């Protein structure tokens, strides 16, 4: 699966809550409508990114799993 994105963030190897903290920082730096591609290996990142986007109002455009990697495309509101 490939989506267009404007910025990429690799959170591989990081444990909770760092992927969410770094995602927040990266999305803050985007313009409205731009997409962040974030990669994480923490299995907890899937429910956490879903919860984070639900709470903040940013859109989780899609997500996928590739081996031990979780890939998220997040569009800034």
């Amino acid at each position, binding site marked *: 699966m490939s989506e267009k994105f404007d910025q990429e963030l690799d959170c591989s190897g990081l*444990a909770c809550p760092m992927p969410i903290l770094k995602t927040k920082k990266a999305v803050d730096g985007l313009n409205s409508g731009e997409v962040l591609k974030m990669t994480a290996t923490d299995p907890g990142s899937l429910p956490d990114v879903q919860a984070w986007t639900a709470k*903040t109002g940013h859109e989780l455009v899609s997500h996928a799993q590739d081996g031990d990697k979780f890939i998220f495309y997040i569009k800034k509101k």
Partner: protein
Amino acid sequence: MEAKRLAIIAAHGSMDAAYPPLILATAAAAMDMEVAIFFTFFGLEILKKGKADKLQVAPIANPAMPQPVPGISVPNIIGVLPGMTAVATGMMNGWMSKANVAKLSELLEMAVEMNVRLIACQMTMDVMGIKKDELIDSIEIGGAATFLEYASKDAISLSF
């Protein structure tokens, strides 16, 4: 109605007790919530300059402490022996860094950067003889009313 604030009390100063308030505070700030942590009693240790990464884990009276060697049971009473706190802390630090968990100092820095209010309890500072200059900068000093006024406005409140 959605809560917009997280109001946390951190009352303990062991390493394992220091993680949950800092993890939840930074995660809540990342979720655009306002956050305050009220540090009282031994929780003040977390705010002492240079102390966050030196907090220890108590092996005694901690039956949930995982065994150093899986499958070999070490009686909890062993924890009273001199040096066992350092052993348990070293073991726990090893597991944490293997799992790539952020250090407490990093989480504390993130909290400051994300405008989490760090409130040191004046009364317990006096009780334990802790001076403001022993604590990291970017804290404020307050009392029970300071925390309660904050927590009384649409806050989720947690105590650790």
